[in-house]
């Protein structure tokens, strides 16, 4: 057997092919060939994949996409435009990973493929400029993001929004962007730190010390939710710090083929949190939390940050899970019009990355069920992606729209008053869904934290 082992170690991990096509060469270099080989093509991922479910065709499935990646790496096909488009069709929801018997890291493969494609992207000067502005100019910079928030707030509040809308100028934009613009919440230049500072003490006895990851989109569009997160945590016995130097998590970059920028952001966050002396790093956005929890993988090739990343990732936890499993039991009561006998029905849309990557689907449900006067109605296929998927609903509006329509059929069937989620992207998408397909039911899409905070018996202030 020793001989066999020696022989095995001599087996090349990747085929030694000198590809003529530059993208094939980059893909072969960047794709984890072990993962490509691990896919045994059993097909168990097909029923879990939203794009396969919508289209019923093999290339639109995880098994199909992995086969395409491998075919390019093996030189069986050229990476044509259809190949590049197919890699973009994937929502990145990673619902295929928990059902994969062979434990293939599909999420990593699709990011590696997009990263390689991005290296060879041929974009017009304008598109390149917008992309650079967004990914390298705005998201990584706290100050610029804040400025953008202020500009957006100014746009919304100054009457400019009204002017733009009434002028018909929005008609110049594609329909899906117009719809998105209309459901954006009031942006703000005042984030969570500007509102409550960088430290918030635990109420009564301290259970643990935690740091809030405030997120970039969260803190501009949902700053109030961040504040509520801190106050809920404090109420459950957590002392909360909010490291000032933290930046965007890098998830949108990682999912869009900007792995290097994502790594830079990760390193900056590691520095920002390393001296905070905390037990947990709390996220209230499934999409951010999932990447934070995978910083160890993202930086595994970086010897100077590898250990710090492992320690960081092991502390990352979603707010629902922390409250449900580690915190003091919170007392949630009914609010609103007296204590009428009738109950409020709520339903929940899983955040894909919270469920599939962070493995947390029970905790939010437990919390909702604990609220007095609330009936929890499980939505059919709540575990299926809503079509938001980072910026997917902007880049792939047709598929996202189709998925959203089916999603809302299930949501409407629950007859819920509140449709709760755990991620800002999902929340915006659910608001869009209610607006387009809610049939005037009065359903309201809300972040689970805001819902719970509103039902806390005797809030601290």
């Amino acid at each position: 057997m020793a001989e066999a082992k020696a022989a095995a170690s001599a087996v090349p991990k990747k085929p030694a092919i000198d590809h003529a096509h530059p993208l094939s060469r980059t893909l072969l270099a960047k794709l984890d060939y072990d993962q490509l080989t691990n896919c045994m093509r059993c097909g168990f991922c097909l029923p879990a994949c939203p794009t396969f479910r919508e289209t019923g065709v093999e290339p639109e499935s995880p098994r199909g996409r992995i086969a395409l990646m491998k075919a390019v790496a093996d030189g069986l096909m050229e990476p044509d435009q259809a190949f590049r488009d197919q890699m973009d069709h994937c929502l990145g929801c990673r619902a295929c990973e928990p059902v994969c018997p062979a434990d293939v890291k599909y999420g990593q493969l699709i990011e590696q493929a997009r990263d390689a494609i991005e290296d060879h992207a041929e974009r017009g000067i304008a598109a390149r400029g917008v992309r650079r502005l967004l990914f390298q100019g705005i998201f990584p910079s706290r100050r610029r993001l804040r400025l953008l928030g202020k500009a957006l707030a100014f746009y919304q509040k100054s009457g400019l929004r009204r002017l733009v809308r009434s002028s018909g100028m929005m008609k110049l934009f594609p329909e899906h962007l117009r719809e998105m613009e209309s459901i954006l919440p009031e942006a703000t230049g005042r984030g969570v730190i500007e509102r409550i500072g960088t430290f918030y003490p635990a109420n009564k006895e301290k259970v643990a010390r935690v740091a809030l990851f405030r997120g970039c989109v969260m803190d501009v569009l949902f700053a109030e939710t961040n504040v509520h997160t801190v106050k809920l945590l404090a109420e459950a016995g957590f002392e909360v710090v909010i490291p000032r130097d933290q930046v965007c998590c890098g998830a949108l970059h990682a999912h869009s083929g900007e792995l290097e920028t994502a790594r830079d952001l990760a390193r900056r966050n590691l520095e920002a949190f390393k001296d905070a002396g905390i037990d947990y790093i709390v996220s209230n956005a499934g999409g951010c939390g999932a990447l934070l929890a995978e910083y160890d993988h993202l930086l595994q090739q970086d010897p100077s940050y590898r250990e710090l990343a492992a320690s960081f990732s092991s502390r990352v936890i979603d707010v629902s899970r922390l409250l449900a499993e580690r915190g003091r039991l919170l007392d949630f009561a009914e609010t609103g019009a007296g204590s009428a006998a009738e109950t409020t029905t709520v339903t929940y849309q899983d955040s894909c990355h919270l469920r599939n990557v962070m493995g947390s689907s029970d905790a939010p449900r437990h919390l909702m069920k604990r609220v007095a006067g609330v009936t929890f109605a499980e939505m059919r296929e709540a575990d299926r992606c809503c079509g938001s998927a980072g910026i997917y609903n902007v880049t792939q509006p047709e598929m996202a729209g189709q998925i959203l329509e089916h999603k809302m059929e299930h949501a409407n069937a629950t007859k819920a008053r509140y449709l709760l989620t755990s991620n800002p992207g999902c929340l915006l998408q659910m608001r869009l869904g209610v607006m387009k397909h809610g049939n005037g039911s009065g359903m309201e899409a809300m972040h689970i934290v805001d819902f719970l905070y509103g039902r806390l018996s005797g809030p601290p202030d």
Partner: protein
Amino acid sequence: MLDAALTRRLRQIVGEKHYRDDPEALVAHSYDGTPMLQSLPDGVIYPADTAQVSEIMKALAEHRVPLIARGSGSNLCGGTVPVEGGVVMVMHRMNRLLEVDLENLTATVQPGMITAAFNAHVESLGLFYPPDPSSMKISTIGGNIAEGSGGLRGLKYGTTKDYVIGLEAVLASGEIIRTGGKLMKDAAGYDLTKLLVGSEGTLAIITEATLKLVPPPAAKKTMLAMYKDLYGAARTVSRIIEAKIIPATLEFMDNPTIRVVDDFAKLGLPRDMEAILLIEQDGEPETVERDIGRIRQICESERADRIEVAENREQAEKLLTARRSAFTALARIRPTTILEDATVPRSRIADMVLRINEIAGKHGVSIATFGHAGDGNLHPTATTDARDREEIHRVEQAFQEIFEAAIELGGTITGEHGVGVVKAPFLEWKVGAAGIEVMRGIKNAFDPHQLLNPGKVFAKAARKRVVIDHG
């Protein structure tokens, strides 16, 4: 690349977007669940109904282009890999449940319907369709019929072939035939229904199936028996049958399988056991209680280390999850997983497990074994790495000897996966030269121009597995 006139005609039949020959479509239909096997088709077509299937077949027959019908492509014998090119026909659009006949207890379905969806629907009507291949969440009824799929309940309830009582199929000429019907008895001529079941798409294309349904058992109990002695477990299997008890399920897992299943499904299985038997009995509550009691005694007398009887449905599902995850969980040990289905008379299970271990040791390869022990259908599963040519060669030698051993013990080379490409070289060992000649005669009668799924079942001289050359 097919003739331009032919592709034009195919597009006319199914509509522009339902025939594809772009690289993406070709690559995505060049494989199935079989390791180390890949071959590109010339085109991919998605028919909407039987009439289209017939028209497509006529067009292909005129041009002598092969056709490979395919459901979800989850089979393990290379049954749907287009090894000689041609057009892959994906049946997913033909996925409707056409009828459930409550008076005759039959269901009529299109071939593209997913097996698990069909089962769930039938159960919601208070009926039961027993075949339950492990891939049922994604496999299709049509694929199950073509491959003659089995499953965990095969011992007591039989396999897919025992539930197909009528078929509509398109012949290689494009003609449509109907066989059988909603009939429990039918002695009119050769039984073409049963002939088509398990014919692996080499005789006709199944476009509709009438399936027999049965009343569900009133009660069911699930138990696990764990052994530190492998042979005690194997003897238990033989003794249960000897005691004239036919359990609904009688499944076996050896130690390497137990370990990986536990890693995968986090079930808290004891990792020091050499074997686990998963046993289920269903039927009238009194019978179930009595049988489980007697089985328990047998397990005890064969010195089972631990015996667990599930108290409720939830616990039972958990015990079942262990076995259902076995094949796929094994894939985690090494990159490549090769799963076979050598089958022996159930009285020879202990001998077969012993032989598999011997052979694996001799060739220095890792083979974990689990399977449907009650019907003698074992799944020796090699965990290896397709990139290691030398090791793969040893794995292939080991499997060849395992097939030989199975035949020697009065068994067969495949219990439920089918022959396809993978086991074609060994078919003659099982059926003999005369048997092959009869089968060839049947093939030629149905498909004189060798258009339906060519390269399957019958081996060409010295045909071996096609390993992608990274050379």
